[in-house]
Structure formats: structure tokens, C-alpha cells
């Protein structure tokens, strides 16, 4: 299954970079745009374990907010200050999935991690980023199920 259109567009842009450092630089620009979930969404620290991405040693947390139009907005927190990749991933997921067809989030493949960060990503780091995707998928699916209950 293809990735969501905005992610496909991002991958096309990343493909322009032949040099891996330039590619990393582009990803860091995503991390630089990271903004933590507002307190009105996340609540106070410590954040609940149920919102914590599994397998992520950057301590990423995910919240999915239902919008009025049936779409969703994704919010994140990354507690480990060295969690640069997690912050980049959070911004990419927010910018590519928020306000889009929720099914795109539900069906997002783990493969997107390798497509964005490269196959050389370590197993530990890759699993953490996939854990963020897992939580986005699960939260979206749950909210969709709730919204479909008559």
C-alpha cells in the first residue's frame, strides 16, 4: 500500500539529497519545528503510561484529538532531550496526517520509518519510531470506532 500523499511528497523531496548529511539536515529541520502538545491536551506531567509510545527510549508520548469535522489532530511530547529522531517523526506525523482522512493514519505502514530515516537506522531507534506509529494507529482506530457507535 502506498504511503499517505503528504508522506510520498516528503519522500520525493528527501530523494533530492544525494548526500546523507544533507538528508539528515532536512530531517533535523522537522525536529526544529517540534512543538510539545499543549497542556490542555496532554494534562500535567508525569504523562500517563497509556500515552507513551512502546519501545521508544526517547520517551515519546502521543495524543489524538478529535476535530469537529471528523478528522484528527496528532500531538506529541518527547521527554528525552536527545530524542531528535522522535521529534522529527512527531512533526512528520502531525504535518502529514493531521486533518487528513483518518484511514491514512490507521493504515500507515512501519516501512515509512525506513523510507524516511534510511535502512541503516539501528533496530532500537527504528523500533521506537515504529512505536510512535503504533500509538497513532491505535488511538485513531479507537476514536473512529467510538465515532461510529450509533
Amino acid at each position, binding site marked *: 500500500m502506498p504511503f499517505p500523499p503528504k508522506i510520498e511528497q516528503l519522500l520525493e523531496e528527501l530523494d533530492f539529497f544525494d548526500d546523507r*548529511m544533507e538528508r*539528515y539536515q532536512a530531517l533535523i529541520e522537522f525536529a526544529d519545528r517540534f512543538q510539545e502538545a499543549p497542556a490542555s491536551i496532554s494534562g500535567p506531567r508525569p504523562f500517563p503510561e497509556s500515552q507513551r509510545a512502546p519501545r521508544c527510549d526517547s520517551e515519546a508520548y502521543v495524543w489524538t484529538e478529535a476535530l469537529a469535522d471528523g478528522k484528527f489532530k496528532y500531538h506529541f511530547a518527547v521527554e528525552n532531550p*536527545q*530524542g*531528535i529522531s522522535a521529534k522529527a517523526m512527531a512533526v512528520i506525523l502531525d504535518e502529514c496526517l493531521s486533518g487528513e482522512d483518518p484511514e491514512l493514519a490507521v493504515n500507515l505502514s512501519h516501512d515509512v520509518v525506513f523510507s524516511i530515516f*534510511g535502512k*541503516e537506522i539501528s533496530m532500537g*531507534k527504528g523500533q521506537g519510531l515504529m512505536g510512535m506509529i503504533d500509538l497513532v494507529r491505535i488511538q485513531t482506530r479507537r476514536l473512529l470506532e467510538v465515532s461510529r457507535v450509533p
Partner: protein
Amino acid sequence: MSISSELSPAERGYVHPEILVSTEWVAQHLNDADVRLVESNEDLLLYPSGHIQNAVQVDWTSDLNHQVVRDYLGKAEFEKLCSRIGITPDTTVVFYGDKSNWWAAYALWVFSLFGHKKVKLMDGGRLKWEKEKRALTREIPKFAPTDYQAAQERDDETIRALRDVVMEHVKSKKPLVDVRSPLEFTGERLHMEDYPNEGALRGGHIPGAKSVPWARSINPEDGTFKTAEELRQIYQVEQGVKPDDDVVVYCRIGERSSLTWFVLTHLLGYQKVRNYDGSWTEWGNLVGAPIEKP
């Protein structure tokens, strides 16, 4: 009594304290032409997001590993790497990185395979540097390439153990140290907690191995190493592994065990420690290899 992380490396009683440098030492040598700072991380975005001034990046996958065969780079590739980062055999290479210096120790170990003698590790790695709010930069330094000549071909015998050697080691009942987490050691898990159970078909440990998770050597608050006395208590008193023993250390792919190799060899002065980099991803898949499981 001071906790070990409040003591300088020279005050902690190590056999070779000169192998470890403090963050302050690094801060004073940022522009020292005889010193090259090398950052090695698990997270590939960390270095470009900010690193110590004049530090170059050496990546464990793309720079240190062979790109096809599961092995390290050869002598010619190592020379090319060292030439690219502008060092000579006389350059003091100081490694540091994330994850309590896992990958930095791994890089230091690979440099040692080729006989680069002047190597050091920055105590506490990135964690300590950042906790002290020391400066980071995104400026990638440029150094004039050199024509590095390695001291030797890759030495796969002195500090590296290949599987046949480990098999003989087991038969001879010589000491092994398994630095993985307790659940990996018992075979309940094939990877660290919260990581997927993949990479090996069997769980457990190499027969006779002692379980000493790598993290026991580290002060978790700042990533510095524990004192020699604390380390001896763990390895010698608790586990009975002596400085003149022939020791093999291993983990899952050889990175965590590089850190323990560093502790035993350089901080405690053990004479013969070899890192089995094939580790559990090889042993746990090897047909007929003996495994101990409680």
C-alpha cells in the same frame, strides 16, 4: 563519601586512567591539532543536530561495518576513513556519543583492531556534556585529508573473538561475561525489554557465562563510569572474574559488550579480554551451538 561521578577519572583508581578524559579536558582541547573528537551515536540525527565543536562523526553502520558481509571494514577502508577525518597514527582520537557511550566504545574498539594506539573515551559521553550545558554546534568541521597508514591489518585475534574461538572457550570452561539484560540472559527475551523478539531463533546464554548487564558499570545520572573499587566489586568479588583470566564478553551484536570490554581492559587492566561481536544474533542462530537456559 563522594559518589563516583563527582570524582575525576584520575581519582577513581583505574589501572589506565589516561584512557578516559573528562568533559572539561575535552573543552580545553577543542582546537588542539593533535586531538580529533569523534562522535558515534545510535541516533543518526544527533550529530547533525548539534555536536561538540570540531568533532567529526563516525557512524557504526556506514563507516565501521562492511556494507555487504557481516564484518568490519578492512584495512584499506579503515585507512580511507581515517584519512577522510584527517587523522594520522599520532592523532589522539577521543570518542564520545549517546547511550552511555555504547557506540563510542564500539568505535574505539574497532580503531583498536587496526592498532590505532592513541584512543580515549570522554567520560559520560553526550549525556554529561549536555547536562553541563556545554556548547554544541551544527557546523561540520573540515579537516585536510591525510594519507593514513594503519599500523597493522585488522587483528581478529587479540581483542576480538570469532565463533570458533568462543566454542573452544566454552569447552575449556574459561570465563564469559554476558552483558545483556537479565531477561535476555535467561532466555525469556531475545532482545532488550520493549524491543521485538527477533534476531535469534533461540534464547538463553552461552554455557558458563556470567550475567553482568553493561549498565552496572555506569552511573545512570550522568553516564560516567563507576570507580575501580565499585567495578572490582562487581566483576571480581561478585562474579569471580579475575584480571589474569582469559575473558570473552558478548551481548546481542557486540556494541554493549564493547563498553564492558573497555571497562575490563582499560579501567581494570585485565590482560586478555576479547569481544565476541557475533554475539547472540550469531550464537542464538548457530546450528548445534550449546545453550544454557534455566
